[in-house]
């Protein structure tokens, strides 16, 4: 039996990525990273800023996301997100731009603890890939 499942990433503008031969996906769920393999139980969760790692037969890919929702059902993983970038195709200036924005956000003092936490996460992740 094959160990593959389907992944679909959509953002508001379009269907961003569809892959049928995924072996494993690691998503930055809100309560910690979560690895999803075939025949995972149906789950709904949401994402914090981080890297989505997709391991598939046709190669591995990394995507940077800022937020989103994941739904896994019947061996089909849907990720809804408003901000997603392929790490490999992000150039240096774009990364720095994102980092700068995130740092600005994290530097604000008048935001709630949760958004502060999210902004800090963003900075951390972006520093990592920079």
């Amino acid at each position, binding site marked *: 039996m094959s160990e593959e499942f389907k992944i*679909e990433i959509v*953002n*508001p*503008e379009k269907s961003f990525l569809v892959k049928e031969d995924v072996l494993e996906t690691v998503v930055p769920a809100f309560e910690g990273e979560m690895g999803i393999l075939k025949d995972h139980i*149906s*789950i709904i969760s949401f994402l914090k800023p981080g890297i989505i790692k997709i391991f598939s037969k046709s190669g591995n890919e990394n995507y940077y996301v800022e937020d989103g*929702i994941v739904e896994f059902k019947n061996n089909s993983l849907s990720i*809804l997100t*408003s901000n997603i970038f392929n790490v490999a195709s992000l150039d240096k200036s774009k990364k720095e731009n994102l980092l700068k924005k995130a740092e600005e956000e994290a530097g604000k003092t008048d935001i709630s603890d949760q958004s502060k936490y999210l902004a800090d996460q963003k900075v951390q992740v972006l520093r990592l890939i920079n």
Partner: protein
Amino acid sequence: MASLDDLKKRIASVKSTQKITKAMKMVAAAKLRRAQESAENGRPYSEKMNNVILNLSSGISDKDNAPKLLSGTGNDKVHLCVVMTSDRGLCGGFNSNIIKKAKSYFSKIVSEGKELKIITVGSKGNDQLKRMYGDKIIENVSFKNSKNANYFDADKVGKIIIDKFENSQFDICTIFYNQFKNVITQIPQAQQIIPLNTKDSKDKTSEESYEFEPDEDEILSNLLPKNISTQIFKAMLENSASEQGSRMSAMDNATRNAGEMVDKLTIQYNRSRQAAITKELIEIISGAESL
């Protein structure tokens, strides 16, 4: 009767108007294709979002403690209406159809003695509504500078709405937009987004149980504000496709009308030219005869 010279000028001016409307039709057709494409591309997102929310809300055990965005405030005294129109004119009945729909809803609300608040998106709607409902308009958003409908603009509107909801400035929120059916038909829609109308959608939620991480309430309270923006974005996409479609058919009509007008004027011009020649001939002949 107009002189030959006047007729000539009118024909020329109608012809140049025709050129303009023809060009506008071409532009609208090109934009329509793009707008339609992005409306279609945007559909999976809002559909998936809707599915997830349906699954979640059916999974919620404690209905009384459900987030307010889903269950409402329990009142229906203050209505917020978001009227989404275009920023540009010359698009046939596009804007007035939305306004008509919205106005009939407004008068219903007002006659029931409920309070009405209006947010207009797009300057054309604001122009038309401020005459009658100027004091009810609490905000006017316009995205003249963005070329295409994009999610960030929708998110801005969504944030304004949620902000007002959290400050309990209204109980029920409805958005007005045109749904794109085809180039000639756009259907004005009124869609309630707060509280979310889950009964409306077909009940095909699977009974399958989901694992939630964190729990349902937390996911829902995170998801619902996003859903508002998504719905607004969907409306914006439908609207921009409708706007271009409506403009295209309006400009097509205008071009055809201008063509008819040019034909009519040309016949008139030729007739009067011939009449003038005949008159001159008669004068010459009768002058020769009298000699």
